[in-house]
């Protein structure tokens, strides 16, 4: 009996609205108040508020302190957070948010629509993606303290999904007084106040960040955990050992060497979760061609390369099976948008050889065709570059791998454009207009801008489809446009899709509700508790 109700509770606990209506159950039932949770992140964050950066650690930590208007289920269904009600007008040009009553920032100031207006307009200005995500946001009106009305210049069908704490944090306007022109410089980035379940206490540089339970949280009696310590542990094997020893309770974004996963899974003290990447869709790996390169301007060469790859091998060797094959431009985990019918260039070395012959690169007496250099975004992508070197050798293409650090890579590929093709992982995010369009839209061929259309891909058909989908309010029509887009890219191969990785979260068995929605480890942890306190 209790077992069932416990499970039921856990299911419901994710739905804050429901949990709110049953506060006595929440109190009487399972969640235990108290205890300390230690989480490990790879890098020290540049800031604690995801207003000005989308750095991985910031996006994990920011939502605990600074909340968003909405939060999202595993299938990206919006749920209330700071907004209790929301309405999108028929024409998709007006969004009205009703704010939750009685919400206070950690310094006691009440949350008002002015904070929402300030936050959204600044996101548009200083968030690395804000300029494109909120490009059609014209203004935010505040008819009263608890109502925010957004006016758009054109519809943005993806926009509602952007109002999460991770992507669109609502910051206290007064904490940015004097920094209106330069929000990045505000001390709020390093010692934030927000409305969230946890309050900032201390940031020990090079070591950890300490947060404590917010006793005045609007969703009382949440949160349950007394303190949340986030330790910076740069080394994956150290994280792995820490999780096993119990020093680390929680770590996300595939925190351990995948070779350790067998041990971790067998460890009775640890639990493994592969959901929680539905919102950010991190770890989407591609081979991207520079279409201005003498070889790759010819579609036959690009197709030939695609015919040499067996993504299953990459999945098995590099990602040890933790991922899905993703041959098109869109990740399969965006189930409502991904088209499983996307054509695939199957492994076919003979066809590849024939294509290169046709393209004017016949094999010489030694079987050699040409030499080319691959760049790799540092990290796992460099193993994919090594894989390319291996599979292209039999085709007579000698691949040289270039080693450079992240900044040099970004400078070379996006500013200097001194590259032939590259292996990279990127975030697909919650919608192709936000996460995918940037790589294929001719208007986003902008030398100097990282993670833009480095392929220099210019296809009027693709442009038309992307631009239409960006403002299409009818989901069915939009799906058609995006399907067509996926098909064109699959044949035209400005980039070869490879793998959409699973992002693993590992937690101590003692932890409950560490992954309650699409935000995964970037959730606000209001529901998180320790079984034994």
């Amino acid at each position, binding site marked *: 009996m209790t077992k069932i109700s416990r499970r039921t509770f856990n299911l419901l606990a994710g739905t804050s609205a429901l949990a709110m209506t049953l506060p006595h159950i929440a109190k009487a039932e399972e969640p235990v108040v108290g205890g*300390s949770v*230690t989480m*490990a992140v790879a*890098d*020290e964050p*540049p*800031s604690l508020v995801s207003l000005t*950066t*989308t*750095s*991985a650690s910031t996006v994990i930590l920011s939502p605990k302190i600074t909340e968003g208007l909405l939060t999202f289920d595993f299938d990206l269904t919006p749920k209330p957070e700071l907004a209790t009600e929301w309405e999108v007008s028929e024409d998709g040009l007006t969004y009205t948010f009703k704010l939750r009553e009685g919400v206070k920032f950690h310094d006691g100031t009440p949350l008002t629509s002015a904070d929402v207006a300030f936050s959204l307009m600044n996101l548009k200005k*200083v968030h*690395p*993606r804000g*300029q*494109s995500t909120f490009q059609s946001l014209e203004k935010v009106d505040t008819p009263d303290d608890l109502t925010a009305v957004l006016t758009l210049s054109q519809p943005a069908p993806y926009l509602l999904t952007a109002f999460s704490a991770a992507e669109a944090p609502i910051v206290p306007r007064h904490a940015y007084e004097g920094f209106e022109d*330069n929000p*990045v*410089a505000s001390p709020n*980035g*390093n010692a934030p106040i927000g409305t969230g379940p946890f309050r900032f206490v201390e940031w*020990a*540089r*090079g*070591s*950890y960040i300490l947060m404590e339970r917010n006793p005045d949280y609007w969703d009382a009696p949440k949160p349950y955990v007394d*303190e949340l*310590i986030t*330790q*910076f*542990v*740069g*080394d994956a*094997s*150290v994280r792995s*050992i*820490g999780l096993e020893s119990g*020093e*680390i309770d929680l770590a996300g974004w595939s925190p351990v060497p995948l070779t350790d996963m067998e041990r971790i899974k067998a460890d009775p003290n640890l639990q493994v979760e592969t959901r929680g990447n539905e919102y950010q869709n991190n770890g989407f790996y591609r081979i991207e061609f520079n279409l201005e390169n003498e070889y790759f301007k010819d579609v036959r060469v690009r197709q030939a390369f695609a015919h040499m790859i067996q993504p299953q091998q990459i999945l098995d060797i590099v990602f040890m099976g933790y991922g899905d094959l993703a041959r098109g431009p869109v990740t399969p985990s965006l189930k409502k948008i991904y088209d499983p019918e996307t054509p695939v260039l199957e492994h076919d070395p003979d066809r590849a050889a024939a294509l290169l012959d046709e393209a004017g690169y016949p094999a010489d007496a030694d079987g050699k065709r040409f030499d080319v250099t691959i760049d790799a975004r540092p990290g796992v992508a460099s193993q994919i570059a090594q894989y390319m070197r291996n599979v292209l050798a039999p085709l007579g293409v000698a691949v040289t791998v270039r080693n*450079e*650090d*992240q*900044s*040099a*890579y*970004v*400078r*070379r590929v996006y*500013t*200097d454009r001194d590259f032939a093709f590259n292996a990279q992982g*990127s*975030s697909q995010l919650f919608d192709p207009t936000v996460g995918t369009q*940037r790589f294929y839209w001719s208007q986003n061929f*902008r030398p*100097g*801008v*990282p*993670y*833009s259309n480095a392929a220099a891909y210019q296809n009027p058909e693709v442009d038309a489809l992307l631009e239409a989908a960006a403002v299409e309010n009818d989901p069915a029509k939009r799906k058609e446009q995006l399907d067509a887009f996926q098909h064109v890219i699959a044949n035209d191969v400005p980039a070869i899709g490879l793998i959409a990785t699973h992002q693993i979260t590992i937690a101590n068995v003692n932890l409950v509700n560490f992954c309650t929605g699409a935000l995964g480890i970037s959730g606000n942890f209001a529901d998180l508790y320790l079984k034994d306190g």
Partner: protein
Amino acid sequence: MAKTHHGAGRVPRLLARLLLRALPTVVGVVVLIYFFLRLVPGDAADAIAADAGAATSAGMEALRARLGLDQSLITQFGQYVWGLLHLDLGQSVRYNAPVIDLIWQRLPDTVLLMVTAMTIAVALGIVMGMTMARFAGRLPDRLLSVLALVFYSVPGFWIGLMLIVVFSVQLGWLPSGGSGPIGRAGQGWAGVLVKPRYLLLPSVSLGLFYLSIYARLTRASMLEQAGQDYVRTALAKGLSPRKVMFRHVLRNALLPVTTMVGMHVGAMLGGAVVVETVYNWPGLGKLSFEAILSRDFNVLMAILLLSSFLVIAANVMVDLVHGWLDPRIQET
């Protein structure tokens, strides 16, 4: 000045002299490194965008403007030097915090690591060297000589990894990384008490190389000193060999060791880059490597300046220790 007592005035005078001597070096280091660093492809804005995984053109422009990267190199350098003259080390672009704060937070752990490693190296090195000298040419000397050579030849990061395999992975005796327990357990007295457990492997990995140098140096200079006339005279005068050994031979033999220690202080910070990476030790070595990767050059400049001053300070110390070991030096 004339009133200053001979002994008391020594330190400030030494300091002043050394600072004066070191000034051109420090200026040279600043100029050379500042412009040298600008040759690295990519700037802080690229690093920040790379880290964020997203960017827009207006965002990149704003970022460069904010970081002053849109100004000419000379202007930037001028501003940097102006700041330095006002004892302002600037802001870290990666952490958006004053560089001085970052340094202060990382410094204690690095100092602890380096001092421990150096203490192990000097203490064990001298003991080992003395033993070798005592048994010169015989079996213990031969064995220890080979051992010293082994320490001298083994890559610090690799011995670090192997120590982790043995003592953390296989035996489970010592932690595999970090400078203290993760989270709250690392604070207060509890943290201090467990610190040695975290310190042992990294400081051994960092110190072994230097240990071997000091051992060989001690051996060589003790043998050299033992052949000197004054030793023979002392022994002939009937002083006990033990007394001669410690009072005279060791004392003089330590001179080259202290000189070397002074020289190694800077180099050790370089070694700390690798060892701190292996052990995830949150010190300046790791910070400097991260600063290079994120083009956070103000941080790197500050660390290099600091290490320059460290080298100078080490020289002062060496001179003082020499004065104490060998009173004759004081007169010159």
